[in-house]
């Protein structure tokens, strides 16, 4: 079960009440991880409206998760 580092921004940070999280997860992909988090924190945004960054590079949602990976979900930009 890989241990993943997460950093939250914007509404995801508000939903989780935290900026960062270290998480042991059984999820095999970033998409599965997001589903897991969504079930816990009630994220409203669907993955299709976001981009994914793993280890500071943009990746597809089927990106496999590895021990120590840094995952960031990039929420949509609004306003401005």
């Amino acid at each position, binding site marked *: 079960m890989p241990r993943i580092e997460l*950093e939250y*921004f*914007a*509404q995801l*940070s508000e939903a989780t009440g935290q900026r960062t999280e270290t998480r042991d997860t059984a999820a095999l992909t970033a998409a599965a991880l997001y589903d897991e988090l969504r079930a816990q924190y009630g994220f409203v945004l669907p993955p*299709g*409206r*976001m*981009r994914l*960054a793993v280890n*500071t*590079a*943009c990746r597809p949602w089927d990106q496999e998760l590895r021990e120590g990976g840094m995952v*960031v979900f*990039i*929420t*949509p*930009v*609004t*306003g*401005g």
Partner: protein
Amino acid sequence: MKEAWWCSLHRSPADDPVDSVALRTCLLRAEARGFCSFEGWVRPTNDSRPVPRIAYEAYAPLAVTEGQTILDEALARFHITDVVATHRSGYLRVGDIAAWIGVVAPHRNAAFSGCRSGSWSTMPMGRSAGSPVIAMNNSSRVGPILALARP
């Protein structure tokens, strides 16, 4: 890696207001004969709702890779001498400069093209859902990259 896209003169964090004069100074080159810039200002509405201010958050590490790619593309695609771009983070009020792009080139057409076309069209100015805002500035070469705005 070209050093043109960062400027030692511009060391203020992205949380500070955009200093367009300092950024323009970064672009002064002997071989340049034209300068073109664009400023993106915070809008007063979003989806018809009033927006008194906006908060941009940044995921800085990704700025390095994404920002470098965009600037390399711009420099490769257009006959321009140099380019500097930045995007604010933090709280902005309506009318504040959220994004700034400046290009210098030997000729005006290249300066206009480099500023308004190509790579820059992939750089959302805070309104394109699902896309990152690329931001570049300050002494760490790249400041915020993903400006996650919320009204």
